[in-house]
Structures are given as structure tokens and as C-alpha cells.
């Protein structure tokens, strides 16, 4: 929709839009504020004083470090699996014409379209039926399953723009399948894959519902947070962890945004 004539919005709309954005952002800002509060026992507002001491306390907490390490490991491996599977699927769906494409798209989207609890409980009961013990790998399995769609969506959108004639042009000029993949396909979808990987990482890093069902004794950072939410014991430490989690998820999102923004310009330039 182009706004050609009326340059400025009606006041009511402006207020509603900005109010809506504030509604989205004020709670996030509060998280940053509370990480510095001197109050230990309650969620008092305004904070009676500000301090940096909780960062030091959190830094020295082995349980937080263990949870963080586990989360990063799970997210890294799940992202790697999702990258491979999502890209393969996107390539098949966009580069060849075959009867079941719609079904495939649905299959990929299903794990995230259905409520997380369904995915979680289904995997849990399947694992126990198959006598698979809950472990690091069962968490990874669950995460990879719902991360595929993020990679897939990014890759399909880009594949669509790498028009079929680019691949034909490459083959026409003497490049075989592998050379075409390396010199033409990969450079053109690279940033989309990176963006998809970033989002998959953020998704996995933050996931809690499926993890509660597929994890055993291990606790990822979100599981650690969840326990603190249900039974608050370490309020100041939780405040700091919440802020760190927020930052860790912000960075991949920002990176993904800049990657796809540039990528679209690159891929669109040939048209």
C-alpha cells in the first residue's frame, strides 16, 4: 500500500500504534532495570537502589553456567541438523516438480503449528514406548524437529528467487551439478541459510515446553528459568539471567534481519 497524498497519520492512529509498541517494549525494558536492583526478596518498584553485584554473583554460579552451556550445545547441534534437513527439503520442493509438494510443506510446518505441548508429549510417549532414555540427545531430537521449519521457510523464499534459469545458465556454461551448487546456488542462498540458522538457534535456545517433556535430569537455561518462575529462590540471579537470555536472543534476530535485508537486494538485482 502506497501512501501517496496524505503524509501524516491521524492523531488517534498514531497514539494507538505508538501505545501498542510501548506495550510490547516496556516489559522488556523492565527486565533490564530489575537486573540492577538492590532488592532481594520481592519485586519492588521502583527499585530502592541500583547495584552491579548480582552480575558477579551470577557469574560465579556453576548451575547457571551448566544450564547455559547445555542450552548453547543443544541449540548448536539442533541448528546444524535443522540446517541440513531444512535446506534439503527446500531444494527438493523448489527445484523439482513433484506431486507431493504441498504435503511436504505441511509436514515441515506441523511441528510448530501444533501447540508445543502436543509435540512434547507425543515425543515423550514415543521415547518411553521405544525405551529410549531421556538425555541430551532426546532434547536435540525434539528441538531439531521444530527448527527445520525456520530454515525451510528462509531457504524456500530465497530458492524461489534463484530462478531456474540461473542453474541452467551455469550448466550451459559447462558446470556440472556440484560446481553449480558450489558457485551458483550456495552463494545465492548463503545469507538466507545463515539467517535461518540464526533464527533456529534463537528458537531452540529459548524453547521450554518441548524440553520439559524430552529432557531427563538435564536442565537447559529455560528450564532453569522455569523452575525459578514456579518456585522463586534466587530472585536477583534470575533477574540477571533473564536479561542475559534477552540479549542472547536479540543478537541472532538482529543479525538475521540484516542478513536477509542485504540478501534480498543481492538476489533481486539480477532480475
Amino acid at each position, binding site marked *: *500500500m*502506497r*501512501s501517496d*497524498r*496524505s503524509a501524516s*497519520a*491521524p492523531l488517534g*492512529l498514531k497514539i*494507538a*500504534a505508538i501505545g*501498542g*509498541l510501548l*506495550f*510490547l*517494549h516496556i*516489559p522488556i525494558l523492565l*527486565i533490564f532495570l*530489575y537486573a540492577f536492583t538492590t532488592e532481594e526478596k520481592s*519485586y*519492588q*518498584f*521502583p527499585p530502592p537502589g541500583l547495584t552491579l553485584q548480582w552480575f558477579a554473583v551470577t557469574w560465579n554460579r556453576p548451575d547457571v553456567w551448566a544450564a547455559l552451556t547445555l542450552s548453547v550445545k543443544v541449540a548448536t547441534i539442533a541448528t546444524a541438523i535443522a540446517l541440513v534437513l531444512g535446506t534439503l*527439503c527446500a*531444494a*527438493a520442493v523448489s527445484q*523439482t516438480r*513433484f506431486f507431493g509438494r504441498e504435503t511436504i510443506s505441511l*509436514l*515441515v510446518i506441523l511441528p510448530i*503449528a*501444533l*501447540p508445543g*505441548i*502436543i509435540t512434547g*508429549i*507425543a*515425543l*515423550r*510417549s*514415543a521415547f518411553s*514406548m521405544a525405551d529410549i532414555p531421556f538425555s541430551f540427545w532426546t532434547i536435540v531430537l525434539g528441538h531439531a*524437529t521444530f527448527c*527445520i521449519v525456520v530454515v525451510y521457510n528462509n531457504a524456500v523464499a530465497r530458492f524461489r528467487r534463484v530462478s531456474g534459469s540461473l542453474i541452467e545458465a551455469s550448466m550451459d556454461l*559447462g558446470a*556440472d*551439478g*556440484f560446481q553449480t551448487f558450489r558457485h551458483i546456488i550456495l552463494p545465492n542462498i548463503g545469507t538466507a541459510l545463515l539467517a535461518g540458522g540464526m*533464527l533456529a538457534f*534463537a528458537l531452540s535456545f*529459548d524453547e*521450554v515446553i518441548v524440553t520439559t517433556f524430552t529432557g531427563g535430569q538435564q536442565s537447559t537455561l*529455560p528450564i532453569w528459568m522455569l523452575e525459578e*518462575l514456579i518456585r522463586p529462590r534466587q530472585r536477583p540471579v534470575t533477574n540477571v539471567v*533473564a536479561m542475559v*537470555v*534477552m540479549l542472547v*536472543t*536479540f543478537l541472532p*534476530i538482529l543479525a538475521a*534481519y540484516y542478513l536477509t535485508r542485504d540478501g534480498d537486494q543481492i538476489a533481486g538485482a539480477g532480475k
Partner: protein
Amino acid sequence: MSALATPAAITPNRPGLTGRLSDFLWKHPHVLLAILLGPPVLWLGIIYLGSLFALLLQSFFSIDDFSGLINYEFTLSTYKQLLSDANFDIIVRTITMAAVVTIFSALIAFPIAYYAARYAKGKWKAVFYLGIMLPLWSSYLVKIYAWKLILAKEGILTWAFAKLHLLWLLDAWLALPIIGGNSLSVSYTGTFLVFVYVWMPFMILPIQAALERVPGNLIEASSDLGGTPQQTFRHVLFPLALPGIVAGSIFTFSLTLGDYIIPQIVGSSRLFIGQAVYAQQGTAGNIPLAAAFTVVPIVIMGLYLWMAKRMGAFDAL
């Protein structure tokens, strides 16, 4: 160019395995398709769909009341149990909440999407986009935690009401039946606020996408023809944005329907579907009933998606 000899009309393939493999895959595109599709389809088909079917199958079994073991015989008794008064209440409560959350999400999301689609340009467009994407993607648990801070008795909301000398209003609200409670963090109002906060961003982008496809001059044409802003909204803008709203509502509705963490952390002790599933499979150990409960959101979302598809909402995704 003279350095290059004139080639033969048909050149031999590249030496080595890759050359031969490349030729083979080119001649047999079905093999290539199978190689591409095999891993993801096996993964999703076996791990995911397999688990899902196994779960649904269990809803047709029952639990032995005495031993607590699963009785592997086909029965519909679990579904009868699902429709018992107590469980039916849970279902109705969850659907009502999902519907109310969806409506309010649409109300809050619409102005943001409209502004972003029609008035935000250049740098502001990016600001709006990130301003929507960051809360949408940022940590689910931290967002809930933020609301725990806000809704706490000593938190910012109470403080704000006190500063404005409006505490009586808050107390009056909490005194209301059903939606009130001891404090906001243990009331349906609190649950509702958190639901709207967490799922509303999913409503904005589809509406924005739908609105971006409306030519701007359509709206101007309407006002040129003497339509008041209300008429323009009702007869032009709203119908055109509707597919986007429906697409967004798929997310808000489905996500609210299946959530069990938000009502557990902020809310009363009365259960939602997600909590019931969690309790049945966990403490109660009644997997068949838990499975039957999961069928409810699946069926509702199936119907919802079918309706949405008929309204053309998928084009707005």
C-alpha cells in the same frame, strides 16, 4: 581467446567420482529427488508423525483404575471421560480464553500494522519492523517473567495506580467475580494480559502484509466519495484486512489453546487444556486421557484452518 583450442562437440565428463556422480544424478533426477527428500521426510515422518500417531492411538486405550496400567484394548471410554463435566469445563474455559485473547490481540495489533503498512517509511519502516520482530522472537519465559514483575503486589502496576490515586479502581476490578482475584497475578485478568502480550505480535505481521496489498488510492477513493473515516474503515479497510486478521488469529488462537506455562505461573488454580494434559500425563499417569485432551486442540485447529483456507487467509501468511 586464441590460446583456447576449439573443443569437440561433446566433451567427456570431469575425471573422478564427482564427474561420474554428477552425470548419474543428471540422468536420474528421481534419485536426486530421493536423496534430497529422504532425510527430512524420514526424520519428520518417523520421529514426528510416528510419535503423533502413537499418541493419538493411545487416546483409544484406557487406564485400568486399579492397577493404573494402560489397558491396550480399543475403547471410547477415555473420550467419554473427556466430556465429563469437569473436563468439559476446562475445554470451554480454554476456548473462551483463546477467543478473547484473539479479539484483543487483533484490536491492539491493527493500529500498529496499519501505521507500519501505510505511514511508516524508510528508517521508520525498519524501526517498526524490528520493533515488532524483537518482542516476537525474544524469550518466551523472560516475557512471562517480566509480567510477573509487573503484576506483583509490590510491582510497577500497583505503584502506578497508587501514584495516580486509582488504587480503589484496581481493588474494584479485583473484587469482580470470575475475572478478579486476590491479586492480578493470580487472576484470569493477569493470565489474559500475559497471553495477549506474548501472542499479540504474531497478529501484527499478517495484518500488515494484507494491508500492504491494499492500494493506497482505494482508501483515498473512499474518502473522496464522501465516506467518513468510520465508513472507510468498515467498508474498505476492514474487509481487505480480514484475511490477515484471520491468518494472525491462527497463531494467537492455537498458541493460547495449547499453552500450559502461562496459566501455571500467572493465574488462578483452575486448569486450562495444556495444564490438564500436563497433569494427566505427569502426576496422574493417565496417558490415554492426556492423549484425548491433545485431540481437542488438534480438531479445533483443523476446523479453524479449514475455515481460514476457505476465506483465503493463507495468502496473507
